[in-house]
């Protein structure tokens, strides 16, 4: 069934330029409720190579909380337990980050990401103990059954339990639905279509979100997580909302893997213009992005040619810096590396293949 988009009659509408150009789309989402979920302190760990300080975590999370962002993710970029040679050792443990942020939140709730195969139920219990309200269990889009144990535990702990199907562009909507149903049956009350490669176009998003919305129980929410590699972060998020997604991930100043996530402050401005109800103060979130997040970027998070290739070739966004480092070390083009990783249908977590492949390519180059 197609669940109707909920209408809230007396929703407070933020003040925007009242008769701005483009007023015809002003009411397009009037009354539509959207839960915005910030990624800057989790996906944003990738471009920071997991070196965000506790002070930075606290100031950004507090700023987002003050701006009314309802949900903030805090974890290693590759989820709880991601601390490793393979993905990078963080400045602090997941527990230290959560302990610093969670008690300081006035309204916002904090989520954590967990990838079975990397983190375990022990990490999940730790995060729950630190006051996380939401656990997002992420698997490659075809491997939902490895998350059954973790989703079941999160649900039994009374947590907001989210199934996060990554690289969702790699399978058709019907196949994605089948995987989402496994997660829903295991205890997820929200299912995400995750565009980890930032390669989807709005029609791809619409088809998948609509299929999920139609197939899952009406009480089960649907969410969308985008990357901005093809500049589609906002457009894809709007397509998702129009197709029935109730949760949308964004990141202050876009801080995230690849060309970053959907820039949250831009999304808020657009949603304001369209009349959606999200509860986030535009000016305050703009200020968090500009005053706190942009100054701490090591390199500008933008659509450089490698990030563009991620989106173009459908490659997992956090491979970006790994490919650039391996390319520089072994004298091969990072673009060639990323294209080959796409050709081989690599999936999230396979960062360990990048140096191996660079060695092969360097040898082939030397030999040829």
């Amino acid at each position: 069934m197609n669940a109707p988009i909920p209408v809230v009659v007396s929703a407070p509408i933020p003040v925007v330029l009242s008769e701005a150009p483009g007023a015809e789309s002003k009411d397009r989402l009037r009354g539509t409720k959207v839960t915005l979920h910030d990624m800057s302190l989790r996906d944003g760990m990738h471009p920071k190579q997991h070196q965000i300080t506790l002070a930075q975590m606290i100031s950004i999370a507090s700023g987002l909380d003050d701006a009314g962002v309802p949900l903030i993710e805090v974890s290693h970029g590759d989820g709880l337990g991601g601390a490793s040679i393979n993905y990078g050792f963080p400045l602090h443990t997941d527990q230290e980050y959560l302990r610093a942020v969670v008690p300081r939140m006035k309204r916002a709730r904090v989520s954590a990401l967990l990838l079975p195969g990397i983190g375990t139920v022990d990490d999940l219990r730790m995060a729950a103990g630190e006051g996380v309200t939401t656990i997002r269990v992420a698997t490659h889009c075809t491997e939902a059954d490895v998350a059954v144990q973790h989703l079941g535990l999160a649900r039994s702990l009374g947590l907001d339990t989210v199934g996060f199907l990554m690289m969702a562009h790699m399978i058709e909507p019907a196949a994605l639905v089948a995987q989402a149903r496994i997660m829903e049956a295991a205890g997820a009350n929200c299912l995400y279509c995750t565009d980890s490669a930032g390669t989807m176009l709005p029609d791809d998003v619409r088809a998948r979100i609509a299929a999920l919305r139609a197939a899952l129980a009406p009480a089960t929410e649907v969410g969308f997580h985008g990357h901005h590699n093809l500049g589609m972060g906002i457009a894809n998020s709007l397509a998702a909302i129009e197709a029935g997604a109730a949760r949308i991930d964004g990141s202050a100043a876009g801080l995230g893997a690849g060309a970053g996530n959907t820039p949250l402050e831009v999304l808020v401005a657009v949603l304001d213009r369209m009349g959606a109800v999200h509860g986030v103060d535009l000016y305050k979130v703009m200020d968090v992005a500009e005053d706190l997040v942009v100054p701490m970027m090591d390199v500008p998070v933008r659509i450089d040619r490698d990030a563009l290739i991620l989106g173009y070739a459908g490659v997992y966004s956090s491979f970006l810096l790994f490919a650039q480092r391996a390319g520089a070390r072994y004298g091969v083009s990072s673009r060639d590396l990323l294209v080959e990783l796409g050709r081989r249908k690599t999936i999230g977590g396979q960062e360990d293949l990048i140096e191996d492949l660079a060695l092969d390519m360097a040898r082939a180059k030397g030999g040829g």
Partner: protein
Amino acid sequence: MTKVNAAIIGSGNIGTDLLYKLKRSAILDPVWMVGVDPASDGLARARTLGVKTTADGVDGLVPHLATDRIAVVFDATSAHAHHQNWRRLAEHDVLVVDLTPAAIGPYCIPPINLEQHLTASVRNVNMVTCGGQATVPMVAAVSRVQEVEYAEIVATVASRSAGPGTRNNIDEFTRTTAAAVEKLGGARRGKAIIILNPAEPPLIMRDTIHCLTAGEPDVTAITESVRAMVHEVQRYVPGYRLKNGPVFDGRRVTTYVEVEGLGDYLPPYAGNLDIMTAAALRTGEVWAERALGRSS
């Protein structure tokens, strides 16, 4: 020539692959295949290979242990079933080679510690995990040269080769493998990561083994040790290959390996399953050689 008689409990994919390997063994003779479903393909296949079968589980095997002089029992069922099987087998004079994650007995990775288990007191050995069999030898190859502060392995296997046992309890894989990286690999701290990749055609198992040495790594000695260990594993897993490395980057020593299976019953890409059955076979064979008084 005298062979030592063996039985396999579990007539699924792993048990069947192991049966094919045992049929070729010069030392072990598979006499019994034990299942729980009389209509199972695995038992039917075993019968066509001239092996006695029972669908009554371990209870169907126990009365024949003495009469058929069974000395080695391979358990390819599940952790839960292995606990029950061991309760029935412990009082009998057999070596039990456990391919499940139960790990009642000590971990066994042939080139590292098989010799230590060839004593009368050890009656149950555990084959760790597929990732452990493929990677822990590489950790040991570094740690036998110099101290390894931390080792981390990443096992990537084809989705199709990961059965429900692995999928239902993937944490068990990461925990058990990490424990073996420490206990048998000799790393002070260990971590394991597993990736299931659904690409078609299915990819061959590949593993990355990262070690952080305590001091500057000894490039020559470690490289030699890694190559020697690869040869050791190739004695029983011919498709075990060093793809790249060891790579030296500061204190990081990284080895990339690929494991192609023999394709006995399981397809060649499932090197992760082949290395388990091959390691179990190797364990049973070396033990049997000692029992027969031959030297390996």
